């Protein structure tokens, strides 16, 4: 079984479009959406949710005002500015360290477990999908990513799948690092803009940091040929494979509006381009 992750560094370069297209043309696989705080893959794969689970993670402090003698000790030790002058907890700022509860002499603070989101195992037209929804303004997206990854891997092992195809989050922080662990190949999709090139370099760095095989896709490569050349030169110098280039096409935006994977929707050369990329990956 091969685990393939699609990431980008910069957001909006085409991760989900590529993931959904791979989902549509590959055989015998499980899909995962690891962009748990702004998940979009379901808008193309239209999952039918089979199993739904609570994601409990971390704790938040709660003050019982009846016991509180307003000594101020909790506010003094809290490093997250989460305790107001009225000794109430700002649950958004609270990182659940529990120090306030430890130092409270009147036992007025308890630590309550957070319900931070939900995760799902679904059926789609193209195979099973494991996805999640982080609660509004919740933390621990990295842990939720690790959870859906683990569930998908177990499902793939049970069903003897050949691939786990993973839609990754943008950036290089906590959820990306959780997405990268144990991956066989990271497909990094970029665009020929200065921002695209800048963010690509950092995305490559993070993948190399975890010693993961990389393949680069340049999306909308014909929008700025100079920058595409710069990306190609950079990849040549650093000995990283470019596994595909996709031209700009308004058909791709239309495929999103229609909720159909681009590889099936686009009647122009986009589909062939994406198929060629998948041939190189598999």
């Amino acid at each position, binding site marked *: 079984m091969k685990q393939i992750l699609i990431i980008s560094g910069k957001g909006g370069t085409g991760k989900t479009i590529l993931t959904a297209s791979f989902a549509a043309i590959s055989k015998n696989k499980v899909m995962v959406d690891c962009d748990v*705080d702004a998940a979009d893959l379901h808008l193309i794969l239209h999952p039918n949710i089979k199993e739904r689970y609570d994601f409990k993670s971390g704790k938040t402090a709660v003050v019982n005002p009846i016991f509180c003698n307003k000594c101020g000790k909790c506010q003094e030790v809290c490093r997250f500015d989460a305790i107001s002058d009225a000794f109430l907890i700002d649950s958004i700022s609270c990182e659940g*360290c529990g120090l306030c509860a430890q130092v409270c002499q009147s036992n007025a603070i308890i630590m309550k477990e957070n319900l931070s989101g939900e995760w799902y195992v679904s059926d789609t037209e193209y195979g099973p999908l494991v996805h999640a929804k982080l609660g509004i303004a919740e933390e621990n997206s990295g842990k939720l990513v690790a959870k859906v990854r683990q569930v998908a891997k177990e499902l793939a092992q049970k069903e003897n799948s050949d691939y786990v195809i993973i839609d990754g989050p943008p950036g290089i922080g906590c959820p990306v690092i959780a997405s990268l662990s144990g991956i066989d190949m990271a497909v990094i999709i970029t665009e020929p803009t200065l921002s695209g090139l800048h963010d690509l370099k950092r995305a490559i760095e*993070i993948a190399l940091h975890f010693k993961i095989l990389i393949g680069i896709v340049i999306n909308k490569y014909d929008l700025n040929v100079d920058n595409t050349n710069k990306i190609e030169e950079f990849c040549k110098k650093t000995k990283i494979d470019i596994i595909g280039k996709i031209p700009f096409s308004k058909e791709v935006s239309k495929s999103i509006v229609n909720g159909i994977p681009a590889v099936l929707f686009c009647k122009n050369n986009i589909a062939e381009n994406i198929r060629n990329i998948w041939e190189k990956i598999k």
Partner: protein
Amino acid sequence: MIISVASGKGGTGKTTVAVNLALSLENVQLLDCDVEEPNAHLFIKPEIKEKISAFTTIPQVDETICTYCGKCQKVCAYNALAVIPSSKKKGTVLIFPHLCHGCGACYLLCPQKAIKEIKREIGIIESGTVANLQFVHGILNVGEVMSPPLIRQVKKHINNTKTVIIDAPPGTSCPVIAAIKNTDFCILVTEPTPFGLNDLILTVEVVRKLNIPFGIIINRSDIGDNKTEVYCRENNIPILMRIPFSEDIARLYSQGIPVVNENEEYKKEFIQMFESIRHPIKRRMSDIMNII
């Protein structure tokens, strides 16, 4: 006044809006809080005058005093310490810096006072200027897990004598909240596609939970469908600006050139938008004053 620019979905045009708004106004400070992938400097091209390291704290155990009682492991909510007690051999305390939130629980609660806090670098903060524009950004070290502490440190540079514009990271979780918290207004940038709308709705829930006044900019407003417009109308969300797709803007963006530097019309539109943001707030302030 502090204005943050955010969007659930990446690549909708946060940096474009933040940069062009900053360049259209007088007396501005621009803070790039997308510390995982900062891009604003590519357009602003500031002269960097100061570069400092940003740190968090992690515990260090003095094992000549430590009795391996296990208290630090017990109080750590993040499993950042593991105590292996001494039996015949000497015990040890393992520390996992990437899991540590720097809350200080182990340090404050160690019965032996065997723990001190040491600094660990998580990134750098650079500041500089371009003409009258002040610029600050944070760059997270590659491999570093937690960006919110760095974002909070970038925001310590806020200059209250200026109009402050904050470019936030994409998403809806902790880094975004760290960036937009305590700002006076949040501009949500979106695109009129199902992806854009789905992520916009999530972001609206976040700004509402944080009680930040907000409005929407629809970028590439002529691609996709009209569901974003309908959503805004039904939910009484002001649309501050619509930016149609233009090959010109896309080309300038790809070269790192802010569109307001090339096109005065856009500058006027950004100034107008800023006025529309400023005045409702003035009105609200006077409403509040009247009540008081």
